[in-house]
């Protein structure tokens, strides 16, 4: 079997993969292929027919397909090879890829660098453990979105949504517009999971109740779902006896989180972060396997595609630098980042502190909603930077940038710690 060679293989042709490939090309990489398993580029954006994309990146409001189209044009304008309906079956630590497609059959590809941009999948019912029967009509919000927006099919008439992730919120509005009755959006946490603007535009504007600190305790119906039982939960998220009520419905949508899709990363021996469920990366988005980079939802779950594009462009530039040997990632002191009090994680998880590092972007999520907060950055017990936020929430990703003069204060051998504190 013949093995093909590429300088850069980008796995995934969604927003992450396209932005990464374009920026790598613009940095001078000429042997690039994007491997996309679907019939077209664009990934999940293709089924996101609502607007609100691109406000940060393009300073205008686009639908998902329009946002994708901009990048598809960018890809087409360059000499970037695109393989559609092409599924990567395996990736190893030598960056050898097994690929299959109807048009080219089974192939082996050897890459000098790889960018992981496989995105994420939705958490399913098993992941949240909702008891009851197992009828049809219980599906993830994204699957419903595909049926309604791409297949033109109605998924039900009387809807309950479990979880307040953004896709569920978007589908609450979408199904209302299709004439369905959305009875409630049920969220086990005391605060919503999705963006504030979606709570307003998708629930409040349609008079759909948001039941915080509630969950679905039982699913009823042998063939098609007939009802859910909804109860209030206590501080430990356990259902409170006596608060249960039955809500008749024919559809339950699950919007209970996204999980980065890292089967290939695992196969390649990439070290994963148990908190993000994505690869552990250095400041240049390189994983623990040299020459393998990660960006987009495969790295950590984003709430805005604009941020995915920016992050992925960085991954593309880093891969280009790696290919031209400008970056000696082994150089500099190895510094671990620590997500301290109030933070769930940081990306990157570690960095090589090199003298030529101009700035460091750190992305993170907070553990709880709070007003008037400061983000304290410490090294070796000493505060080296301070950032203020009027409002933080777990549903909204945060970013800080440390300039070179702050980086110069990092103590070699010490952790770089971030924590959240009330700004009195």
């Amino acid at each position: 079997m013949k093995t093909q060679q590429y300088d850069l293989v980008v796995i995934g042709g969604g927003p992450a993969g396209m932005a990464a490939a374009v920026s790598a090309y613009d940095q001078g990489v000429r042997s690039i292929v994007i491997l996309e398993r679907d019939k077209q580029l664009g990934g999940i954006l293709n089924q996101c027919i609502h607007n609100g994309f691109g406000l940060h990146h393009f300073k205008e409001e686009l639908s998902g397909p329009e946002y994708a189209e901009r990048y598809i044009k960018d890809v087409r304008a360059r000499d970037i090879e695109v393989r559609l309906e092409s599924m990567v079956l395996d990736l190893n630590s030598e960056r050898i890829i097994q690929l299959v497609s109807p048009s080219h059959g089974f192939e082996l590809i050897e890459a000098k660098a790889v960018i992981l941009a496989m995105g994420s999948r939705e958490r399913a019912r098993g992941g949240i453990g909702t008891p009851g029967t197992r009828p049809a009509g219980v599906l993830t919000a994204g699957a419903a979105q595909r049926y309604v927006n791409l297949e033109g099919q109605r998924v039900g008439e009387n809807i309950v949504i479990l979880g307040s992730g953004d896709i569920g919120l978007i589908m609450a509005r979408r199904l209302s517009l299709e004439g369905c009755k959305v009875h409630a959006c049920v969220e086990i946490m005391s605060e919503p999971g999705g963006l504030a603007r979606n709570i307003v535009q998708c629930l409040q504007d349609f008079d759909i109740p948001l039941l915080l600190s509630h969950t679905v305790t039982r699913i009823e119906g042998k063939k098609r779902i007939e009802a859910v039982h909804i109860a209030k939960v206590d501080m430990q998220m356990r259902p409170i006896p006596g608060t249960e009520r039955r809500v008749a419905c024919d559809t339950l949508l699950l919007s209970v989180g996204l999980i980065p899709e890292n089967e290939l990363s695992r196969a390649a021996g990439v070290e994963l972060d148990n908190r993000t469920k994505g690869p552990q990366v250095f400041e240049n988005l390189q994983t623990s396997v040299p020459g393998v980079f990660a960006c987009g939802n495969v790295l950590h779950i984003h709430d805005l595609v604009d941020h995915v594009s920016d992050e992925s462009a960085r991954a593309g530039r880093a891969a280009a630098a790696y290919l031209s040997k400008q970056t000696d990632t082994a150089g500099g002191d190895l510094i671990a980042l620590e997500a301290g009090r109030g933070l769930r994680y940081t990306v990157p998880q570690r960095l090589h502190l090199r003298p030529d590092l101009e700035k460091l972007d750190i992305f993170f999520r907070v553990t709880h909603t709070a007003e008037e907060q400061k983000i304290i950055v410490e090294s070796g017990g000493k505060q080296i930077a301070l950032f203020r936020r009027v409002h933080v929430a777990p549903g909204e990703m945060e970013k800080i940038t440390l300039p070179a003069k702050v980086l110069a204060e990092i103590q070699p051998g010490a952790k770089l710690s971030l924590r959240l504190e009330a700004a009195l």
Partner: protein
Amino acid sequence: MYDIAIIGAGIIGASVAYELSRYRLKILWLEKENDVSLGATRANSAIVHAGYDPPAGSRMARLNVEGTRLMPALCEAVDAHYKNTGSLVLAFDERDRSTLRSLKEQGDANGVPGLQVLNREETLAREPALNPDIVGSLYAPSAGIILPWELTLGLAEVAVREGVDLRLRQELQTIRYEADHWKLETQNETYQARRVINAAGQGAEKIHRQATEPAFHLLPTRGEYYLLDKAVDPQVSHVLFQCPGPLGKGILVTPTIHGNTLIGPNAELIEDGEDTSTTYAGLAEVAQKARRSVPNLRFGENIRHFSGVRANREVDDFYIAMHDKGFLDLAAIKSPGLSAAPAIALYARELLEADGLEVQPREGWNGRRKVRRFAERSPEDKAAMVDANPAFGRVICRCQTITEGEILEAIRSPIPPVSIDAIKRRTGAGLGRCQGGFCGPRVLEILSRELGVDPAEILQDKDGSYIVLGDNRPEVRI
């Protein structure tokens, strides 16, 4: 007029149909659901038990040990997965240790091969993820794991191909003997057969009572399970049982054919033998007890929980009996019924022969079947498969790497699937960590296209489990 009517298409009905398809017999096979293996067969521990549990000298012991001996070759013949993992019964204290010794004695008497009592170190060497507090175990090298619905399909497809007349969606409503034959009425058809085999699972008691005097009573016993994602540590490599004790029979932890970890079942007597709901209490009980065997099990990596209902009865035994007028009960096939199934089929044939059934082998009978599974092939084979048929290059289920080619072959198989779950049982699409979230809509599209029916007619599972309602309504305005 049929020579034989088999009622029920679970593992028992399928095993018997397969066995009897060897002979020159006209066989009717009735199943009330829209596919085979939709009862207890699809939701159980998927274990091939070694055979030390049933009382020494009992018929159940003989059928278990014999079935387990026959299982590998039968699975091989119909291209169903079988893995000889061996099993360990874990002992946590001195009382458990004496239980191990009596289980070994019983197993030796039952003819179970190779039983061995292991000490703590030997046990932990075999299975490092175990609770370090264990004091020993009983190792049974002949135990294994299978996919019960896959074996059932394999047997059923061969039976159908070899001439057994399988009628799905035929729910038996009345059965009575008329002059020299049985008259069987379903919701819309009437059939006649000289002999009847009652393999109707939870429905067997009702059918039995129409045909003859009451003789057994089913006690439907529900058990709940967790199925953890594959590639999640800690992994186990044997079927791990706990000692039966005052706290009950214990919870098992086992690998599955696909590399997941299966944990369960508890035991709860229920009224409705088809109530496969799960409950907070049941799942919590399973998790708590399982941690005694493997403390670090990660229930956060659960991909599915489910329950199955065992056809237990008032005594700890199957109800297998040949009655007057050629009515054979294969009822109350509780654990270890799956393991015993191949032997039960042979025993059923013996009972029918003793009852006067003449069996003459059919010329050209072929008991084998082959399934093409893309993910299990070598790179060279994969290349050849896609070259011959590009549909094998289109991956539909990305969790399990199931291709459109495999789904199309399933649609053209001897028992055509009518639901997404039927495709899952035939190909594995949707069995993985996303549980069909990704491939479900795509499988629906393929089924709708290939069967030439509207998407709204495609089912998730049993009749009535429709997925979509039809086209969006452009006329809706808010």
